[in-house]
């Protein structure tokens, strides 16, 4: 065979193209990181001065122009807990079913399709749905119960997928080992599979709580109160919530200038909750990984 004549400058040109492209990518990536740090930095910088013990433990006063955000913090924690009660048990069971019981074929495909579709439903649609079903039809009214149920529905897909993926990654040899010892399928799941999958399930669940804590649209019409300075006493009470509070403070009100520092503080508290949740799940993941080694 003849040999090939290559254009002599091409090798240089393509290496040059690569260098330019890679620098561009590096620049874009750093820019994204910069955006994150700009947002976080801005809110921390502006909000840090507002933060104080009183801010965290007092109710808002003077038409929201002074005082703290304690009821909103409590409200958000209530909603996180409520949505966990709603979504975790059924979501985990659904995940177990998907990973351990559902035979391959159309059932799994169908359920997965539905789960993916549900995770794509916009949060405002959940808000509408929660209002129609829980607030109006079941007559719970604007309440923590209605809000928790709505948020629970919203976090279902994430919980299911987390559980399913955690269990799927456990090698089949574990299942076979247990079954070979005469354990039933349920015993195997309960004593072998779930304990092994638990670390990843837990970190995933914590992350889903983080998502719940920041959702606003679903609670707009199901739970959130504009101003409700006393703490909720039952699940049929309305409550304030951090994200909704931030929305109200930054878009409406009597004295925008006086509200703004409180808005910064609220945003900071919200961000700190999200950060803590992310760090916690990361730390737990590392802890469990190290323990397995």
């Amino acid at each position, binding site marked *: *065979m003849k040999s*090939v004549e*290559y*254009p002599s400058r091409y*090798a240089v*040109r*393509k*290496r040059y193209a690569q260098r330019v492209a890679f620098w561009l990518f590096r620049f874009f990536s750093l820019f994204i990181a910069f955006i994150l740090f700009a947002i976080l930095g801005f809110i921390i910088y502006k909000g840090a001065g507002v933060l104080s013990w009183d801010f965290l433990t007092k109710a808002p006063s003077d038409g929201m122009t002074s005082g703290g955000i304690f009821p909103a913090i409590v409200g958000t924690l209530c909603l996180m807990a409520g949505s966990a009660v709603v979504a975790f048990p059924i979501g985990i069971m659904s995940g177990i079913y998907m990973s351990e019981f559902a035979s391959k074929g159309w059932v799994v495909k169908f359920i997965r399709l539905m789960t993916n579709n549900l995770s794509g439903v916009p949060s405002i649609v959940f808000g509408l749905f929660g209002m129609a079903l829980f607030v109006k039809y079941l007559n719970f009214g604007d309440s923590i119960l209605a809000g928790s149920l709505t948020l629970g529905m919203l976090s279902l897909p994430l919980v299911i997928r987390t559980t399913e993926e955690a269990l799927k990654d456990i090698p089949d040899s574990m299942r076979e080992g247990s079954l070979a010892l005469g354990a039933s399928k349920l015993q195997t799941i309960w004593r072998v599979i779930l304990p092994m999958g638990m670390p990843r399930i837990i970190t995933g669940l914590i992350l889903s709580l983080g998502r719940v804590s920041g959702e606003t649209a679903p609670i707009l019409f199901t739970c959130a109160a504009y101003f409700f300075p006393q703490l909720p006493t039952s699940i049929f009470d309305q409550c304030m919530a951090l994200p909704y509070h931030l929305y109200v403070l930054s878009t409406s009100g009597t004295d925008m200038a006086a509200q703004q520092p409180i808005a910064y503080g609220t945003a900071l508290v919200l961000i700190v909750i999200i950060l803590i949740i992310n760090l916690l799940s990361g730390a737990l993941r590392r802890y469990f990984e190290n323990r397995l080694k």
Partner: protein
Amino acid sequence: MKIEVKDIDFYYGSFHALKNISMGIEQNKVVAFIGPSGCGKSTFLRLFNRMNDLIPDTRLTGQILIDGKDVYAPKVEVDVLRKEIGMVFQRPNPFPMSIFENVAYGLRVNGVKDKVFIAQRVEETLRGAALWDEVKDKLKASAYALSGGQQQRLCIARAMAVSPSVLLMDEPASALDPISTAKVEELIRELRKELTIIIVTHNMQQAARVSDKTAFFYMGEMVEYDDTKVIFTHPRKTETQNYITGRFG
């Protein structure tokens, strides 16, 4: 000597994968590397076209000279080097493109734009790989429509299209059925007329059938390197003897 290897030591992190290897390979010869899994033969093969550069945390000492030039010299550009040294992999790995584009790929990424020339070259190399008659009517079809054996010959044609002077083959027939294997071996004997071939194989009969010289690797060392006939009939080392008689491996 087409290729000279001088005192090669290679490490993955702290693992000493290749220990003090030196050898020479003549032009237009087929050299087989044999040895049990994990003996370092594939790692060694991948040093010739610097494929191991892709793996982080590796270290190399010693020299590999091809046509007297150090492959690892600082000013060497790997893309130019790899154009000179073709490689065929363990499993057929055609690109998700048409058969034609697979063969033309190497020319295109090295700047050849002349369509007529590319078309000629594709035909020439597909004929060289004894694949032309089977695919000439479906050059536009996906390479994934071919059988495993055809895919592997396509990969050989793809490597040959850029006209390398050395061809590295990493267990090229291990994923193929016996008939396809025979075709690939036939091809290797043909290709020897044009270039120097290094073939890694765990199949000793294959090494005996296609190669002029054979090197036996064990635990990161090159135990023995000699004419294939000598290795398979009168090996000097007992490890070689044990391996080729099937006592381990």
